[in-house]
């Protein structure tokens, strides 16, 4: 099962190796390690997200071993929605049934709107929304975006999506 863990490491040499040892010991296959040096916590800790494939039953053992080595585990669990994409919508977002727009994505079973910010500068003036959509994989992100395009065409909303990573 694919799982992810959010850890906080001290900014000292050797911390990452220490953090990965319990994963090795519990036969976890490491898919990715992202070191967020640019997002230090107020206490000076460095957030690290680790995505792994491992037996779910061993997660508590891993957490306990990490705790013993002084590494804090902020979150650990099944990482179902592993891909995330930002999208900006422009138009009469609220009056074209925002609830329905979000529901249409959420009801796919493979994608969800996990963040939404809306700005309505005035009555009869187009609104702008920032959405963050998460999905179970890259293909599912693509399907969710295709669906959002269909819904937005019905509601005359402009969809501004990110350019694909390889071109950016």
């Amino acid at each position, binding site marked *: 099962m694919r799982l992810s863990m959010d850890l906080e490491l001290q900014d000292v040499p050797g911390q990452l190796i220490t953090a990965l040892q319990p994963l090795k010991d519990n036969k976890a296959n490491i898919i990715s390690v992202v070191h967020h040096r640019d997002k230090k916590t107020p206490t000076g800790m460095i957030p690290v997200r680790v995505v792994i494939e491992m037996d779910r039953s061993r997660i508590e053992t891993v957490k306990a071993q990490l705790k013993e080595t002084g590494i804090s585990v902020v979150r650990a669990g099944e990482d179902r929605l592993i891909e995330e994409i*930002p999208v900006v919508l*422009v138009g009469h977002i609220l009056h074209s049934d925002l609830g329905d727009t979000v529901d249409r994505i959420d009801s796919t079973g493979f994608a969800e709107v996990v963040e939404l910010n809306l700005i309505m500068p005035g009555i009869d003036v187009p609104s702008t929304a920032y959405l963050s959509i998460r999905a179970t994989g890259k293909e599912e992100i693509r399907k969710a975006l295709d669906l959002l395009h269909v819904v937005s065409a019905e509601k005359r909303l402009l969809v501004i999506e990110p*350019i694909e990573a390889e071109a950016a």
Partner: protein
Amino acid sequence: MKEIKASLVGFGVVGHGVMEVVKRKRSILRDMGLDLKVVSISDHTGSIMNEAGVDADYVLKDKTLENIATSSMKGQEAIKAIDSDLVIEVTPTNVVHGQPGLGHMEAALGSGKNLVTSNKGPLVLSFSRLKKLADDNHCQFKYEATVGGTMPLMSLIERTLVGNTIYSIKGIFNGTCNYILTRMAQESISYSHALSEAQDLGYAERDPTYDVEGIDTAGKVVILANAIFGMDAKYSDVKVTGITQVTPEALAMAKKEGYVIKLIGEVPSLTVKPMLVPMESPLNVDSTLNSAAIATDLSGTITVTGLGAGSLETASAILSDIISIYR
């Protein structure tokens, strides 16, 4: 010394730029062994001809040929009648019917003359036919200036990246839209305010439809699709969304998340639409600049940037095409 007898067709902003560049670069061309003589210039009012080469200083004083034309011959008639090896076609573009440029290009290639152009319309409508006409008549047909102005896109792909498989080209191909979106983001001003500013500065036409609705970018996407990807794409194949709906709030929200919004044309997917571009992306260029990311199999993604329009800038791309034919 190789003598090149060129007919310049079109004497607007780009035509003037071509004469200026020919004048300025005469000695450099001679160093390359090229004696480029513009033996005729034609516009909608007539033609001026000189076998020894039309004097650039003399013609550059006038906006049109109305008062200096030595012949009433125009367009196709002039192209066929005048003894030249090369036609430089720089008349205003039209993506609906392609004229008068399309007729000029057919006349040039049909007469066995090499052709260099900055005019998008005929290529958007009839690229395959023009290419075949060039091949059938053993002529060179060059059009670097039609996409991205000075940005070396065609020559980069056709020469430097030759042997690479091109997966996609994505980029900013319209300086007017880029200027408007840049100003909206910088100053949190509305689309209409930024457009007025662009119009005051001469970056946007009084009727900006062609630029802001994405028509110009779509034309360039069609040219790239046909020239680089060998597709037989038409303007109607491109899914186009312009920038008129983009709000300052959208730009502010994008900025907060680390993005800018740019009008992006994509080939071979044939789309033109406003997109989120990461701030740190090399595609993120400001003001009237153009940029293009070329995704290849061997060289990874290569990004080029440059001025997309302007009299001398467009003439520079035309000069580069001329040199590549004769050098």
